[in-house]
């Protein structure tokens, strides 16, 4: 058992969790009778996908995908030679700063971009971008679904699916 855990689950821990969460959501969507509960399930389902995607982009010992040379280092430029404030962003000056700091001097052509040359230090930005989209889509879908639920409640006076179906059946036989 522990062997199974170490070899199969542990390296893919997040992925197992996402599958479990997602199946909880799917279960709620299929098995629950109440529409709002179904929608909660749907949200869990969609959120689990977000967990999955974000897990793809994780790298061990990596940080968030934001380069840090505009913060404190920018001030350093100002401090050291004030006349370069305006073009500090675009000219080669930040590059000098990095070389002075000696953090990432590699003697490459494009000096200050070296800053980011080790991709292993940063998480993969692409899944984050994709999931921003998926979150927005989820919000919009949930909003529309809630609106339809309000209409359902207005028309049937209930959100329980079996009651709605029963009422629909009644009205069909009345016709």
């Amino acid at each position, binding site marked *: 058992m522990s062997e199974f855990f170490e070899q199969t689950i542990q390296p893919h821990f997040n992925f197992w969790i996402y599958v479990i969460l997602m199946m909880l959501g799917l279960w709620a969507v299929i098995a629950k009778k109440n529409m709002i509960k179904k929608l909660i399930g749907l949200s869990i389902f*969609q959120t689990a996908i977000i967990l999955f995607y974000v897990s793809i982009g994780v790298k061990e010992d990596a940080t968030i995908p934001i380069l840090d040379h505009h913060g404190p280092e920018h001030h350093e430029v100002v401090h050291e030679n004030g006349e370069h404030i305006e073009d500090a962003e675009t000219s080669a000056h930040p590059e000098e700063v990095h070389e002075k700091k000696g953090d990432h001097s590699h003697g490459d052509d494009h000096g200050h971009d070296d800053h980011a040359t080790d991709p292993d230090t940063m998480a993969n930005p692409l899944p984050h971008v994709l999931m921003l989209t*998926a979150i927005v889509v989820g919000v919009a879908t949930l909003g529309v*679904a809630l*609106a*339809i639920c309000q209409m359902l409640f207005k028309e049937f006076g209930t959100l329980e699916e079996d009651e709605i179906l029963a009422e*629909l059946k009644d009205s069909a036989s009345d*016709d």
Partner: protein
Amino acid sequence: MIDQLPAIMVLAPMFGALMIGLFGQKDHRVCFPIVFTSLIISLGAAIGCANLVTKDGTIDYFMAGWEEPLGIGIQLRIDHLNALVIVLIGVATTLVSFFSIRRVGALDTEKTPHFYILYLLLCTGLYGITITADAFNLFVLVEITSLTSYGLIAMGSSRRGTHAAINYVLMGTIGASFYLLGVGYLYLKTGTLNMHDIQAILQANEEVRNSNAVIIAFLFILMGIWIKMAFFPLHGWLPNAYSYCPSSTACLLAPLMTKISVYVMIRVMISIFGLEWIFIHLGWSHLVVILAVIAIVAGSVLALAQREIKKMLCYLIVAEVGYMVGGAWLSDSNMWGLSGAMYHVLSDALMTLCLFFVAGIWSKCIDAKEIDDLEGVFKKMPITSACFILGALAMIGVPPTSGFFSKFYLIRGGIEGGHWEYVAALLFSSLVNAVLFFRIFEIAFFGKNPPEGHGHDEEHHDDHEDLHPVLEHEVSWRVTIPLIVTAVLIVLLGLFNGPVVEFIREAFPPTSEIVSARP
């Protein structure tokens, strides 16, 4: 200008929607001109693109100019597979917009601009889905079409319509999520989202190609698309959603949404996974064809059991989806199935459009929602009825309509692939369609319906004793012209089946000896 055509095509309806939002809220009269202009611009761009494809082959368009390395930006691609589909979308959306001009008023006059905003955004989504070459972009655009169609279906619909809409939301979201999940598995294995890049990696790298994750990715993408296209066991949301929504919505969604999903399936099969991998490595062909056979038979039988016209048509859509899925999965060694399925996408979209137009007109003008209400309708509405006959004959598969030729190609594919059960199902379905439509013809031509007709249609007739003024008023050129154009297109597509299929076949990997064996 010319090289910007793909972007113009997708964006014109979106700009139209925004213009309506800005200027159309106060004065509803500006809505329709804006809708019409933007759809015509899109249609023009679509025809232009198709023309370019005929002349120069594939068009690639890189959003934001990010071309190298492949996959950092978003690529649009128009090739022989989708060139005709975009023209179809253009034609269908423009025709339906004509049709909708009167119908919208019936809903809630105040909501006209919002109806058109949703309508135009749906068109943007459809164009975008068709030409994108990015797997994730496809998801975003699918969600645009889904959200707008949820809104269109739920707005102004009945109690049943609302219930159908919530089911559609649940099913549609699960379908889209499955697709997204599949794309995630692929991304995890290949590190890219561009369809052609994924395909290159799958072909180059055997280890990736044979991994479980890629198979699961394919399965989930397929399941997601199947839910969206209402493939038989997953069709539950479709009939109620399409039959209880407003007519113009049904006319827009019924012909396009399922067909575009079929196109997406074929696109995924060809451009992401590759036919060789699907048919030789996986070998699911037999299984899927059997599912398709079940879908065809079940759809036809369920259609036979319906009394309501629109519901019957909806179950016919379910059967037709079975045709196309089965056709696409027949075999890789002969392309008749695939090209027949693509041809059937075009022809079935036009047939469905024609029939839903007629169903919409009937339900509006003579309040005929059920088959038994149609008594004597041919005398009262000769033009509409003639178009209905044409659409029905196409559904049955009578030459020279396009329906005959698509069935011809599909059956040929079935025979060459050795899938006799599929051929039998197609013939069975044609037979059922014949029974169905001749039953309608009979009632509509010769009046008195069979004695087992249902009780309540007498009441309807009392209400509509005085039909003619209504007819003169309602069946205006705005409604009749799109209908006639659709009917003519069905025949034209049938007559020019040879060039069309030849055009589509260019999209598939070269199998020269088969191409030369055209009839």
